[in-house]
């Protein structure tokens, strides 16, 4: 019976994937493009050469870092839509630290580490702001987060066009790139840094450990699962929810720091690259299980990288990747709903 049920669950998951692919194919047909050609271009665009595979991992690092943070806030039952702004603030603080120290004569390792620490601080401050607005101001974390996202964008633009503008003319291309000595060292010939990969893997392990093997993790879960019962158990929900925001801020800040130190080497207007929102999708898709987030984030990162080929090869917009990603999560949820409905009906029948 249980084996049978696992098989049924699997069938529903697969049908969700198929539905999403069919939907995307339909969208492509409406745009008068060949779906098969588009899918194979995305696939080849992500895996055909070692450089492209490495690029998928370059995108995977910030995505899984953001997802690490979001798994924690979701565990506590919080919708941290403000993650985009937290990433931006991390990037801003990293840039600030690098600008301050780049001519100080300190060894590059120290400057890079200071950049990471500053990024973490930025992420925490912005996350804590959303948390405080929720607990001391009664503002839903969704709306506080959204507002803070827009403010973070404004702050980024102001810095790029104002105090940190490039010598000569300020432009949307961002601030002056940093000297190569304070870039995260990459594998020769690739854009991928082994250090950011290590950071991502360690982050996944830390989040897994916190949630599965510590008292704090247990309490975070208790607050998320049953708010009232948590109070009766003597756990202060607001304390743990604030902690959850802080922990998420750490990973969001790291995401921003990696974007500056390892990818763009400067501050650009869209420094978060939408990885925060994408991380929300990944977290929902894997039902907030960090272990499953690892391959799913890689799939999403590969879709992003593969999508870059679409305008070049087929003259269609690369936002198709976004359509694939969000429709995948949507159909997964719909299929999950259908599955629960059917199972419930079965149970009712067997009870009768």
């Amino acid at each position: 019976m249980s084996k049978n049920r696992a098989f049924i669950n699997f069938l529903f998951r697969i049908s969700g994937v198929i539905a999403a692919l069919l939907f995307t194919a339909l969208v492509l047909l409406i745009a008068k493009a060949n779906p098969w050609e588009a899918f194979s271009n995305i696939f080849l665009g992500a895996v055909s050469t070692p450089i492209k595979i490495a690029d998928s991992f370059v995108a995977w690092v910030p995505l899984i870092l953001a997802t690490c943070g979001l798994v924690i806030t979701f565990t506590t039952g919080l919708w941290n839509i403000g993650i985009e702004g937290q990433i931006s603030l991390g990037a801003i603080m990293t840039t600030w630290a690098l600008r301050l120290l780049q001519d100080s004569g300190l060894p590059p390792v120290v400057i890079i580490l200071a950049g990471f620490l500053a990024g973490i601080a930025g992420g925490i401050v912005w996350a804590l702001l959303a948390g405080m607005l929720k607990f001391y101001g009664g503002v839903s974390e969704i709306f506080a987060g959204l507002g803070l996202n827009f403010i973070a964008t404004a702050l980024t633009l102001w810095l790029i066009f104002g105090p940190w503008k490039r010598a000569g003319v300020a432009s949307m291309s961002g601030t002056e790139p940093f000297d190569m000595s304070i870039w995260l060292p990459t594998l020769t010939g690739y854009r991928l840094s082994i250090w950011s990969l290590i950071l991502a893997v360690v982050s996944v392990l830390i989040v897994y450990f916190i949630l599965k093997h510590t008292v704090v993790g247990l309490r975070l879960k208790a607050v998320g699962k049953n708010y009232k019962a948590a109070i009766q158990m003597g756990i202060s929900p607001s304390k743990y929810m604030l902690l959850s925001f802080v922990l998420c801020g750490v990973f969001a800040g790291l995401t921003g720091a990696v974007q500056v130190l390892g990818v763009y080497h400067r501050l650009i207007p869209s420094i978060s690259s939408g990885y925060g929102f994408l991380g929300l999708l990944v977290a929902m898709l894997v039902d907030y299980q960090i272990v499953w987030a690892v391959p799913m984030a890689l799939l999403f990162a590969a879709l992003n990288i593969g999508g870059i080929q679409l305008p070049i090869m087929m003259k269609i917009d690369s936002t198709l990747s976004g359509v694939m990603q969000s429709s995948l999560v949507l159909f997964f949820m719909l299929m999950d709903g259908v599955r629960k409905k059917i199972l419930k009906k079965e149970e009712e029948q067997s009870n009768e």
Partner: protein
Amino acid sequence: MNEFLTNMAGVIAAATPVVVAVIGETFSERSGVINLSANGLIVLAAMTGFAAAYLTGIVWVGLLAGFLTGAIAGLLISFSSISLKQSQVAVGFILSLLFRDLAYFLGTPFMVIPGPTVSGWAIPLLKDIPILGPLLFDQNVLVYFSYILIIASYYWIFHTRQGLVLRGVGEQPISAYSRGIDVNRQRYIYTALGSGLIGLAGPMYSLSIKAGWNGTMTGLDGIGWIVLSITIFGGWNPLRGSFGGYLFVFLQWLGLALQSYWTNVPSQVLQVAPFPLMILTLLFVNIGDTEWVTRMLATLPRGVRGAFYKLFRFLRKPPPASLGVPFERE
């Protein structure tokens, strides 16, 4: 003075889609269903509306297409949350991203081409009223429609039997059910209609205020989130919500007007100036409900306390009690 009047008439016109979308969201949330996809939906409906109007050459077809885009989205949200019991917030958020990307992907053939627009029409006689005439009655049909919508929706929600049913469904679905009301049917209908109005806001931009479709440069990304916040600010009341919409656009205009005085502030910053204000207003609206404020107020002398309670009651309008909660017959 004349120039100021023209500007204010512009503010009223520019606020029209916001007001219509806020009323749409208000209807949906009053019935207990939150449509969190509004941000992507407005972008998508702006694209489908423009495309339909461009292909047929008829403006009305474009407006209808925008409304239908919204109504279909509303049905999808009701289906997933009412029939499949999935989280409204989760599905709404996914849809907001999906709709936005769909709009940018499918809208490519309609980029930067001139299309039909809604033409202005001053109402005879009314337009000659001093001040009010040029301000309110020298606009286009969409703006006049919004005036009627504001009054009609307020009257519908608070002064009709159907409005009473709608509020009951959002507040106390179980007692509504025991009075023989089909709760889920009501929710389906109001979410579809409300989301249709949110969708209508799309072509109100692409066929009038920001005519045309320019992909990511259309500048509509963000408006839906504002609409959701203003719905809260408006306390789920069409009159207060509309006031919020006008106020928001007025502040945006003020930001741009002040730009000529603050030349060293980049325009991007002034364009987002309303967002901190949005947070602040939500803060004022909600802070009276928090634990620490309640505790602090308890220590104050009775007279002062009473004044504060009155202020908070004025600011704070509680959401429909069953917002986001699926209805189960026991």
